[in-house]
């Protein structure tokens, strides 16, 4: 039981990661793929945030006597990664808009068959 609940966050990370990854691979719709990619990235955010946390740790403020504190660096790092994730998602969505204008569809198999005709 300890392995299930003691590492609860990490189990969530694994489940989310695999769900997102599966959606990226299997989805046919380009927007759904991006949603999957987002879930995949979010799982990594949780991984980083969980590993910085210590039970009973306080905020990292300089005080007289030494105390147990939560490491803020992973949290700060993940802020950067969240920004990167937003940039990726918005760029991906912008590309989907352009693809929709160019092909009239955002279903991968239809785009694929349209592209195949072009290369013949």
């Amino acid at each position, binding site marked *: 039981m300890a392995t299930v609940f003691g590492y609860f966050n990490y189990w969530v990370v694994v489940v989310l990661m695999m769900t997102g990854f599966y959606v990226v691979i299997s989805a046919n719709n380009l927007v759904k793929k991006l949603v999957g990619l987002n879930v995949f990235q979010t799982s*990594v955010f949780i991984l980083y945030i969980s590993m910085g946390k210590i039970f009973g740790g306080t905020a990292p403020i300089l005080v007289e006597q030494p105390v147990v504190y939560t490491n803020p*660096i992973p949290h700060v790092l993940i802020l950067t*990664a969240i920004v*990167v994730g937003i940039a990726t998602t918005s760029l991906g969505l912008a*590309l989907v808009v352009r693809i929709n204008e160019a092909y009239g569809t955002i279903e991968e198999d239809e*785009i694929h068959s349209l592209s195949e005709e072009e290369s013949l």
Partner: protein
Amino acid sequence: MDHLPALQVVLPLFCAPLCAVLGRANLAWMLALAASWLTFLISALLLHEVLQQGVISYAMGNWPAPLGIEYRIDSVNAYMLLIVSAIGAIVLTAARPIVDTRIRLPENKKPWFYAAYMLCLTGLLGMTITGDAFNVFVFLEISSLSSYVLISTGRDRRALTAAYQYLIMGTIGATFILIGIGLLYVMTGTLNMADLALRIPQVSNTRTLHVAFAFLTVGVGLKLALFPLHLWLPNAYAYGPSVVTAFLSATATKVAIYILLRMFFTLFGAEFSFKTMRLDLILLPLALIGIFSASLVAIFQTNVKRMLAYSSVAQIGYIILGISLASLTGLTAGIAHLFNHALIKATLFLALGCVSFRVGAAKLERMAGLGRTMPWTMAAFVIGGLSLIGVPLTSGFISKWYLVVGALERGWWPVAMLVLLTSLLAVIYIWRVVEVAYFKPPPENEVIREAPLALLIPTWALALANLYFGLETSLNAGVARQAAATLLGVTP
């Protein structure tokens, strides 16, 4: 002079928004051009300084390492910085005619192309120069996001789907790298690479570290298009504009390979990577299959740009093959081929840029008779092609030579045979282009003129560099050997 390492990255970074707000494509081009040649100058000075005095360590914002971000330059990344900035500057010099005519952007958005180009250069230089693992991820994403934008500006609508596909694969790769860095941080409590290198051996028997190693290898493998992970590359290179393809094929995958080298040799150490994890057993077959299958597929392409894209996958295979030998000669071959392949592919793709500037898409049948109508362009293409094959007196020969010697040193003569055999496959696909261009009559009803000088001069500068570095090998082979020695921690 003390702040050269910071300027190397900051200069193109500041230039990017300036390009965007300038509003006129010509002005933006001139600004970007000035900045990129200045970055080239800086990287040349840095390489000179490193070769004279050894490692340069620069504390960003005066915060000392390991808490602050350290820029750490040794002979390996000084050499990489020189490659990236040189190709960036030369390709940008040729960019204007192609951006003016062959890019799907409205006139008022063209300055943004140069802004994206500068950001991409910033990201690549930053990844190379930094000594901080998380910084690598941030710069990787800067360069990746801007390269998706650059690729999507191609005229063909398939450029959009290629950019989208690259975005998905690239983000998965980058996220894998992020996971790897996170796991390393959990185990060591540091992000500084020099610090990581000291602390990793203490925890090298833990499963977490093995998992981190696997995630990093696969993530970087995706970015550098290692054989089964190369699927994004052919479309992205085939449908992106020629200047973008020339720039990315010569720099982006190379910088990813540099990250791989840093990781295997500096962070984890050759002992762990090749003795404990037996990486050579994975990389060597992948490299050989990659070389063989990509070269074969290249032979059957009708789009010449796509053909060269597959050839890039094969050439990356040669570099990985050199690395997987994990010996001084093998590593020298890999690092020298980084340099030589950058020259070769930039020459070939720029020559194709000249071709598509005059005849439209770089289809094989459209190239009939170009040997007569565009003699200078095709001559540059042939020089690049010869160098790709590895004919003596060209730079491509140098790296193939070291590769064969390295394989023979290990007693792997079948590998050496395969290197020679696959070079023959390169002869076949380059010959197909030469045959069409020189032995078929040009179409009668249209007049094709030679490409403008603005394109021809940079293309020829690169073609001549191919010949020059085939004879004068102190830079590509000499510094490569020193870099290999630095990575392996031995004297050259």
